[in-house]
């Protein structure tokens, strides 16, 4: 296999990891005002992801860095072309990250409610916008002969991409609810379970519609079709498990659904990395966007050695904080 193909797969894996992990972080943030009825309950919600959200967010930094190193043209065109959506994502991530750290540092309801809003919108906006961004990547955008994006901001808000945004929003919300049912006790656990069933139905409908549109209307291939099918099955399985209160399986189901759906999009995309809808010759591909094989070789060695180490200690973190949290575990402020 080509080194540039390997790096395409590695970047797909990094984004998959990001959406599976930060997906439930976003979901918890979106559900904060819905499931957390008082300050103590909201603190339960935040503390389920407290030790891990920052490590989860590093996945996108690594994905971005890997894109820069392995496919400079892709990174350059995508990040400058999707300027305003990325700006919104950055502002959202800044507010949300600071909010987690600062919210509990003062015992003042007004202070806390401001940061609660920051967590809610700071989770909702990226959950929506990442889907819009990936919808546009898969659909293709207007690239000129120099591979520059010339479509402007409004062209990014096309129906297909917006549907992609609704898919990630509903899917991450469901993923977050299932995660909360797995990680909490008492009232919140019950409510999260019920809510996951409802948002899960919406997510399933939207996701199936979006994947069908992708395969039949945008781009496809056998591998993408198989992955899409498994993604749908995983989601249905996860929701069924949620219904019968098998919380671990439900979480595994939504996690697998997200992972398979992202894999499906990348499979559909290959060998393009950013297709042009003006002229296929303008498309960025794994070949014309990649770095030299020397750089890719070094990066491959680094990834082969260090990725397992990262996975091991991140996995260990989840093991250390495996216990459920309830309102009784929240210390007085």
């Amino acid at each position, binding site marked *: 296999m080509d080194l540039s193909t390997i790096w395409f797969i590695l970047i797909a894996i990094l984004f998959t990891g990001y959406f599976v992990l930060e997906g439930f972080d976003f979901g918890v943030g979106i559900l904060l005002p819905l499931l957390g009825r008082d300050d103590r309950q909201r*603190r339960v919600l935040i*503390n389920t992801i*407290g*030790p891990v959200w*920052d*490590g989860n*967010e*590093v996945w*996108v*930094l*690594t994905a*971005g*860095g*890997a894109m*820069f*190193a392995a496919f*400079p043209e892709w*990174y*350059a*065109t*995508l*990040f*400058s072309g999707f*300027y*305003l959506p990325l*700006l919104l994502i*950055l502002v959202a991530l*800044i507010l949300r990250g*600071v909010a*987690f*750290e*600062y*919210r*509990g*540092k*003062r015992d003042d309801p007004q202070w806390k409610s401001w940061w609660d809003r920051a967590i809610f919108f700071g989770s909702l906006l990226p959950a929506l916008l990442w889907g819009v961004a990936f919808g546009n990547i898969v659909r293709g955008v207007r690239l000129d002969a*120099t*591979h*520059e*994006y*010339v479509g402007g901001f409004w062209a990014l808000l096309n129906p297909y991409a917006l549907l992609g945004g609704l898919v990630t929003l509903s899917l991450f919300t469901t993923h977050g609810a299932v995660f909360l049912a797995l990680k909490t006790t008492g009232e919140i656990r019950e409510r999260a379970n019920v809510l996951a069933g409802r948002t899960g139905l919406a997510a399933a409908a939207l996701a199936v519609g979006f994947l069908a549109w992708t395969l039949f209307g945008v781009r496809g291939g056998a591998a993408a079709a198989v992955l899409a099918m498994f993604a749908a099955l995983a989601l249905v399985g996860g929701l069924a498990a949620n219904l019968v209160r098998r919380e671990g399986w439900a979480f595994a189901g939504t996690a697998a659904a997200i992972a398979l759906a992202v894999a499906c999009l990348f499979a559909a995309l290959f060998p393009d990395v950013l297709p042009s809808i003006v002229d296929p010759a303008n498309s960025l591909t794994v070949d014309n966007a990649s*770095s*030299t094989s*020397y*750089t890719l070789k*070094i*990066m491959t060695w*680094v990834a082969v050695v*260090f*990725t397992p180490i*990262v996975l091991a*200690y*991140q996995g260990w*973190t989840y093991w*250390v*904080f495996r*216990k459920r949290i309830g309102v*009784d*575990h929240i*210390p007085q402020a």
Partner: protein
Amino acid sequence: MFRVTGPGRLGPSGPARAAALTANLDPVDALDLARWQFGVTTVYHFLFVPITIGLSALVAGLQTAWVRTGDERWLRLTKFYGKLLLINFAMGVVTGIVQEFQFGMNWSDYSRFVGDIFGAPLAIEALLAFFLESTFLGLWIFGWDKLPKKVHLACIWAVAIGTQLSAYFILAANSWMQNPVGYRFNPDTGRAELTDFAAVLTNKVTLVTYPHTVAGCFLVAGALMLAIALWHLVRNGAEEFRPALRLGAWVTMVAALATLVTGDIQGKIMTDVQPMKMAAAEGLYETERSAGLSVFTIGSLDGSREVYALKIPGLLSWLGQGDVNAAVEGVNDLQARYSAQYGAGSYTPIIPVTYWSFRLMIGFGLLTALVAAWALWTHRKGRRPTSRWLVRAGIVLPLLPLAANAFGWIFTEMGRQPWIVFGEMLTRDGVSRTVSASEVVTSLAGFTLLYGLLAVVEVKLLLRFIRPGLPDPAPPPETDTDDRPLAFAY
């Protein structure tokens, strides 16, 4: 493809791009705005970075002292300064995401040109350092009662090591812009391509910039630790802060010495790789033997009208080449040389900016060390001074090394101009051509507003937290049971 005869190289696709560049005049405004944005967001980001780098190691040291001696004083200091670290870490992380995205968003032609080389250290930084820092900080924050004492201690050391790795790789990337090595220009693709990664990691500019920057970080962290201790000791007689005062003051003074030594070596290397930057540091226009270094200048710095300058003879020659009699090339000669080498154009940075930022960096750094020495002297052998000047010094102290760091970056980045990659690419050729001025205005205004607001919140929060002093010693948690509240929670 082609190598333009004018200054620098254009992006990958040659003539088409050149046409686009001249046809579209809008990016000229977008260029200035993008530069301002990079400056504002980077200087802001670097207020939190040195605190994180320096303080994580100091907190790790405090906790090690506690684990080894069992003395509760150390535990209380660990928790106190640890919380300061956390408040800062959050800001460092979120403003750091902007930094990584900004290359592609605002400097896409730069990213295309250097991605083959510059992207690798960035990706490695994320994989090796960011994961380590953020994962183990999470474990450290929430793991007080869940991990064995020594494992918990190892977590904060892992964070400290992560910050060092992070510093090394990002400085390797920056040093490549200062002194590109281990690459070749590929005329077919129009971009720089990596040929020797080891050469990039052992760039002589990296090897000296890394210790210089890290010393600057410890200057900040030491001064912060000292300043808070000083304030509590002198104002409230809080004796439990005395160990922090001593540790902070010594770290500050050693760090200041280290910045001087490394800065001196860096000056000599810079004279070799970017003589223009060092000539601009003094505003030396004509080549001179035994060139002096002025402490300050009254009058204009454009070489035409100097009213008065306090000069130390031979110092610039010595800083640059280790010999008080050596000749130092002046701005005018270098400008002529570069014009001949790279084509017509200005290769001179903005002299007043380089001149003053160089002096302010050194001045604020020395002042920091002086305050540290003064604090240590007045507190020698258990003395308890009550001078209100010491309290005031404590309040101002943390700002001094932060300013020194900021001016150091402004000096080295502005001193490289007009280059974004020295000798290879001009800053104006690196900017994103498809991002309009109005888009950059939006982001620049957005970041400035958001960062300003967060700065106010952060400072208020820090003061609110610093004022009450050390926390009461909590009873050490025994075992982790199911119904006991968490030892730490958001």
